[in-house]
C-alpha cells in the first residue's frame, strides 16, 4: 500500500474545490479577494489561474448584496461557493441567509432550492480583536434550513467540502484560521465525509469530551495530559452541527457516562448549550454527572495577547474541568 501523502487543511479545501469545479461547471466561487489575490489567507489560491474570471468572481465589498446575488444564482442553476472573509461579517449577510436562503425551499414547498456553500473563517488566537475573532456558528445553526459544518482536520475538511458541494441546500462551513497550516494524511482519490456522522478522534472509556473545530485539538492535548493521571478520555468531534449526530454522541456517553462539551464559540445560548441539553435529554439514564460546558467567555474577544487567551478554552482548562467532572 502506497504511503499516504500529508497536505494542509488549506490545501485540502482548495483541492476539494478544484476537483468539484472540474467536475461540475455550475460551481463558481465568489467573494472579496478570492480571485487573483487567492484569498486573504490564501484559501482560494490557484483557482483563479485555472478557472478565470468566469468562475472565480471578485465581488465588490458588498457582502449583503453579493450574497443575495449568490442565493439568486443558486436558485437558477449555479452552485455558488460564497466566501465571507471573517465570520464576524456574517452580520452583513444575515438577512439574505436567514430570510432567503434558509427558507426558499420550505416556503416554495420544494419548488426551489438553494444549493450553495457559504464558507467563512473564525476563531481567536491571532490577536485580531473583537470584530475579527468570533466563532458565530451557533447563530446560523439556530435557523432551520441551514446546514452547519465545522471541520477540525484537513481530512475532514476535504471530505466535508465534497459533501457540501454536492448538497442541494445552503451549507455553511466554518474554518478556523489557525488550522489552515495543520496537516493530515489524505488519500489521492476524492472522497466524501457525510454530514451528521460524528467522528471519535480518540477512543476512551472514562469521560467523553465533545469538542468543536479547533477545540478538538485542545481536547486531544488535554486527553494526553489526563492519561498521565490515569484517565482514559474519549474525544468526539460532531463535524457537522446541523445535522447533529445525536445517536453517535449518545453512543459515546453510554460508554463513559460523563460528558464535557468544549466549544470555541460563546457560552451563552451556544452550540455547547445545545449539545449539552440534547445529551441531557437523550442520554439521561447513562449519565453519572451533569453534562458540563466549557466555552468562550461571554465577553467580546479582546485583542491583547495577555487577555485573548483567557476568554478561550485551552488544553489546561479542559483537563481541569474534566478532572472536576470526574470528582477528582
Amino acid at each position, binding site marked *: 500500500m502506497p504511503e499516504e501523502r500529508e497536505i494542509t487543511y488549506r490545501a485540502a479545501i482548495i483541492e476539494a474545490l478544484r476537483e468539484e469545479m472540474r467536475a461540475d461547471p455550475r460551481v463558481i466561487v465568489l467573494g472579496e479577494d478570492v480571485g487573483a489575490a487567492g484569498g486573504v489567507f490564501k484559501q482560494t489560491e490557484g483557482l483563479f489561474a485555472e478557472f478565470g474570471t468566469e468562475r472565480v468572481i471578485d465581488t465588490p465589498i458588498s457582502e449583503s448584496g453579493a450574497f443575495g*446575488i449568490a442565493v*439568486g444564482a443558486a436558485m437558477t442553476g449555479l452552485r455558488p461557493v460564497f466566501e465571507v472573509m471573517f465570520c464576524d461579517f456574517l452580520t452583513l449577510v444575515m438577512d439574505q441567509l436567514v430570510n*432567503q436562503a434558509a427558507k426558499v425551499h420550505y416556503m416554495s*414547498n420544494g419548488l426551489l432550492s438553494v444549493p450553495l456553500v457559504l464558507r467563512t473563517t473564525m476563531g481567536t488566537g491571532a490577536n485580531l480583536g473583537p470584530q475579527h475573532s468570533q466563532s458565530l456558528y451557533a447563530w446560523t445553526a439556530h435557523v432551520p434550513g441551514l446546514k452547519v459544518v465545522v471541520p477540525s482536520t484537513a481530512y475532514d475538511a476535504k471530505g466535508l467540502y465534497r459533501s457540501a458541494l454536492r448538497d442541494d441546500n445552503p451549507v455553511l462551513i466554518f474554518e478556523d484560521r489557525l488550522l489552515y497550516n495543520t496537516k493530515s494524511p489524505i488519500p489521492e482519490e476524492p472522497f466524501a465525509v457525510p454530514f451528521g456522522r460524528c467522528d471519535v478522534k480518540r477512543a476512551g472509556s472514562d469521560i467523553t469530551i465533545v469538542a468543536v473545530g479547533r477545540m478538538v485539538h485542545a481536547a486531544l492535548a488535554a486527553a494526553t495530559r489526563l492519561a498521565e493521571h490515569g484517565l482514559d478520555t474519549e474525544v468526539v468531534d460532531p463535524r457537522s452541527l446541523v445535522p447533529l449526530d445525536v445517536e453517535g454522541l449518545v453512543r459515546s456517553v453510554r460508554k463513559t457516562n460523563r460528558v464535557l462539551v468544549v466549544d470555541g464559540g460563546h457560552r451563552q445560548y451556544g452550540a455547547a448549550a445545545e449539545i449539552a441539553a440534547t445529551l441531557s435529554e437523550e442520554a439521561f439514564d447513562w449519565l453519572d454527572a451533569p453534562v458540563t460546558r466549557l466555552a468562550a467567555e461571554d465577553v467580546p474577544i479582546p485583542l491583547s495577547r495577555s487577555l485573548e487567551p483567557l476568554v478561550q478554552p485551552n488544553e489546561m482548562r479542559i483537563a481541569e474541568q474534566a478532572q472536576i467532572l470526574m470528582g477528582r
Partner: protein
Amino acid sequence: MDEVAAAPWDRQGGEIDTDTRVTLFERMLLMRRFEEEVIAVAAAHKYIGRNHLYIGHEATGAAVLAALRPGDVAHTTHRNHGHLIARGADPGKALAEIMGRENGYNRGRGGTWHICSREVGFLSTSAMVGGSVGLAVGAGLAAQRARRRTISVALFGDGALDEGIGYEGLNFASVFNLPVLFMCENNAKTGQRPSSMLAAQSLLDVPRALRIESVLVNGVDVEAVYKTATWAVERIRRTGAPVFIEAKLERWPGSHQLKPELTTGRTNLRMGFDLSRITGEHADWIGQQDPVLRHLRILAEAKVLTEADALAIDRRVDEQMKKARAYAEASPFPNPESAPMGVFA
C-alpha cells in the same frame, strides 16, 4: 412626469396592435377582480386578510410581464398577487395559497407574501423590502454565466432603494453587466409619508449614478408602460446590460399596512363610458389614477371596445374568479403532520 414624453419606444414610433390593447385590458381586469375577491374572501374567512393588494398598480404589472418571454424569470415582493396573475398564474391556486390551503401554489407554506410558481417563471417572492433585487441580480448572473438569452426582472417598490441590498444589487448588475430589468413601482403618495426617504431628488438619480440606463414612465398608463418595457426587454436581450424603469403611480386609497379596505368600491366598468357615474370621496383617484378604467376609457374613445364588449369581458373574468374561489374554498388545509417536512431539499 416630464421625462415620460421622451420614452425611447415613442422615439422609435410604432403603435400597439388592437389585440394586445384588449388583452392588456382583460389581464388588468382579472388582476383587479382577483384582489377584490381577496377582500371578499378575507371578510368571509376571519383568519386571513393581511394582504398588500395590487389595486392601482395593474398597468405596470400587466405591461411588464406581457413583455417577457417564456424562460425569463421574475422576483417580486409582498405586493405580488397582481404580478402572478399578470404572468398567467392560476387564480384558483393563488387564492388557495393566500388562504393557506393544500392546493395552493406552495401548499400554504408561503401564503400571500411568498407565492411562488416556477411554471410561470416566478421564483421566490420576498417580503423583505429590497430582497427581490439581490435575488433577481443573482438570476441575471446565472443566466449570463450559462449563456442563456433570458432576462431576469426585479419588481420592487420605491422603498427598496432605501435598503442597502437595493443599492448593492444595482451596483453589482452594472459592474458585471447583467441582464436584469429593475422595475420600480413608485406608489409614493404626495402628502402622505412616502415609502422612500431618499436624499436624492429623483429615484432615478441612484441607478443613473451607477451608469444604469434609466427611464421614467407613467405607471397608470398601461400602453406607455408596455412600450417602455418592450423597449427595455429588447435592449437588455441585445446588450446584456441592465435597465431601470421607474413607474410612477398613485397609491390606491384602500391600501393600508395591516388590512386593506375596498374604499373605492367594486370597480364599475360603466364608469369607463360615463364619467358622471364617478362620485364620492375617492372620485379623484377613480377618475384619474385607476389604470383599469383609464385604459378602458381610451379603448372606448378609440372605439376598440363598446360598453357591451367590456361587460362581456367582465362576465368572463367574473366566471373565472367564481371558479377560482370555489377551487380555493374546496381545498382542504394541509395535514398538520406535514409541517416539519421539506425544510431541506
